């Protein structure tokens, strides 16, 4: 009797621990914010939405949030605001109140007292309401679409050097909140890639003891195998029209870039080199940027999705790889003098800016507006996620309490 009881007790603890780790929230730590961004003051909003909006604006690297105590008594939302009185403190003032499950937010310019009011409707995920408000404020001021109400996909690994290792594929809000595991496996899971409608993820899983590319609906969990050919099935990337997946396959020898028609699975070969060709990303509907070591070291190349000759894009640094493209910006990994960092450049421009300062940074992924880059870095010996603004003014870390968290993939804008 006692033994059975103890056994059941231990089992319940075990189940509790495993479910807790499966839902583990990432710990967010802001390491750097801009102190010469656009000064903005947010009054307290009952319910706390202002805290979420502040954090969003901060991590864009474009705003400096003025501390609450800089203004003693701001009229509560609904009462008259003489914004000009605060023009020496902030360029903009935000006030708001909850409104039938959603939020009403007012943005006032202190230079001309102009007011804009946004009404955000209710949502099961209440944090998304605040992210949507942040997107409105961001767009009004920067004239560039906001990308806070988006998601991240990422991979976690626990016990990575033991036989108990466990890989999990997660989807969370773009700030790491509300994580949900959509896949777990004892064998590697890697390279998540979003569909343009943000409803599906393509990824690579070794669950059948060899690599295969799957497509899974993040809401229903329903998944479909797209390619499980001999050799490598890797690096899926969704075409902007959602009809094709670019990928790297080695079924015909060395790894080459192919596109697969998602509805019928038929593949079309894009590259034919005898070198390593991998990590394709779409540059518009008809062109791909990929990594190849055809010149002796890994570098980025561009090629028409229909094939033909490839044009080399990177010449600085011994190692340039893993490109991601959004809003005419290209983020990639640059290895130089033994360090691997995240670089960003204008898609058609020359030169590049280094955005990270770790030793082994990888897997850059751009927010859909190109204003932020999430990537993987090392912290205390484990992989952790970092988000940096494209001007390198703001940086935050998203750390898992257990094991590695890596390979972020930033979703497109959400439709629902």
């Amino acid at each position, binding site marked *: 009797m006692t033994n059975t009881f103890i056994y059941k007790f231990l089992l319940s603890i075990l189940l509790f621990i495993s479910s807790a780790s499966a839902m583990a929230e990432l710990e967010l730590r802001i390491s750097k914010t801009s102190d010469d961004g656009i000064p903005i003051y947010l009054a307290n909003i009952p319910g706390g939405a202002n805290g979420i909006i502040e954090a969003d604006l901060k991590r864009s690297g474009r705003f400096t949030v003025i501390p609450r105590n800089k203004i003693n008594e701001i009229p509560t939302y609904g009462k008259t605001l003489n914004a000009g009185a605060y023009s020496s403190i902030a360029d903009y003032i935000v006030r708001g109140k909850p409104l039938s499950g959603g939020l009403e937010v007012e943005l006032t310019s202190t230079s001309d007292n102009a007011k804009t009011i946004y009404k955000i409707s209710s949502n099961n995920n209440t944090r998304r309401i605040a992210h949507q408000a942040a997107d409105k404020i961001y767009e009004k001021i920067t004239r560039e679409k906001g990308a806070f109400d988006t998601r991240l996909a990422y991979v976690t690994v626990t016990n*990575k*050097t033991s036989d108990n*290792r466990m*890989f999990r594929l997660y989807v969370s809000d773009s700030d790491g909140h509300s994580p949900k595991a959509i896949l777990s496996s004892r064998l*590697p899971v*890697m*390279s998540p890639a979003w569909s343009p409608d943000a409803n599906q993820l393509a990824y690579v899983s*070794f669950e059948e*003891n*060899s*690599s295969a590319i799957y497509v899974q609906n993040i809401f229903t969990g329903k998944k479909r195998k797209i390619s499980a050919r001999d*050799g*490598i099935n*890797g*690096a899926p990337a969704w075409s902007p029209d959602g009809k094709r997946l670019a990928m*790297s396959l*080695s079924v015909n020898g*060395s*790894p080459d870039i192919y596109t697969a028609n998602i509805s019928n699975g038929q593949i079309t070969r894009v590259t034919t080199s*005898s070198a*390593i060709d*991998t*990590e394709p990303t779409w540059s518009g509907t008809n062109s791909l940027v990929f*990594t190849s*070591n055809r010149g002796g*070291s*890994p570098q980025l190349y561009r090629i028409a999705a229909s094939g033909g000759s490839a044009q080399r894009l990177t010449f600085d640094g011994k*190692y340039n*790889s*893993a490109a991601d493209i959004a809003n005419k910006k290209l983020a990639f*990994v640059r*290895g130089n003098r033994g360090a*691997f960092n995240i670089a960003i450049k204008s898609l058609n421009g020359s030169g590049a800016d280094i955005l990270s300062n770790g*030793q*082994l940074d*990888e*897997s850059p992924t751009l927010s859909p507006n190109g204003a932020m880059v999430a990537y993987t870095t*090392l912290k205390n*010996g484990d992989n952790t996620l970092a988000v940096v603004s494209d001007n390198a003014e703001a940086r935050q870390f998203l750390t898992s309490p257990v094991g590695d968290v890596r*390979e972020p993939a930033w979703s497109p804008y959400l439709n629902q």
Partner: protein
Amino acid sequence: MKTITIKSTFAIVLSALLLTACSGQNVKESTTGSTTGDSNNSTVTNTTNNGGATSGTLGADGNSNVTTSEQEGNDFTYLPGANNDPNNTQDISLAGLSDPNNLLSQRVIYFDYDKAAIRPEYMVLINTHAKLLSKYPSLKMRLEGHADERGSREYNVALSEARSQSVKNIMVAQGPSSTQMRTIGYGEEIPIVRGHNTKSWQKNRRVEIKYDDY
């Protein structure tokens, strides 16, 4: 494809040289074979004692030069062919797979950074496993390639698969059917050791030979 043929021919010649060198008596300090066709500067050191038993070391360190002090692999006191006769395969047996004194018990091949070329010191090991496959045509193996954590993940998958392909290409030249070997590239996903330094990286840059039923 052409380069691979040339490389494996070169490798066979080199391994033959090694066998010849090791069979000599009283080879006092070392026989050094250095690769000239490759970009790295690997050297291999084999020492022979007076008793005629041959020993070698399989290096697995960040440096390309392998010496006894830097070794990470185990010593082995066996080379294929009893009495140093390469045509004698009596010790090439399934039992040898679990005999720590038999070279067949060694199943890991280490690589240089961002390279899939086989270091010359592993030629004997690879050829010995290939001979086992030839002798037992129903025997099947997986060649599981791995990379260290540096560089991007999918590139590392490709690199690690190229490493397992390099091993397979050399084995096929020894006679077994290519259907006996399956290659897989795990990239940097399954490190064998933690740590972010040259020593850990070397241990993680590897191909593991795994027999299906042994």
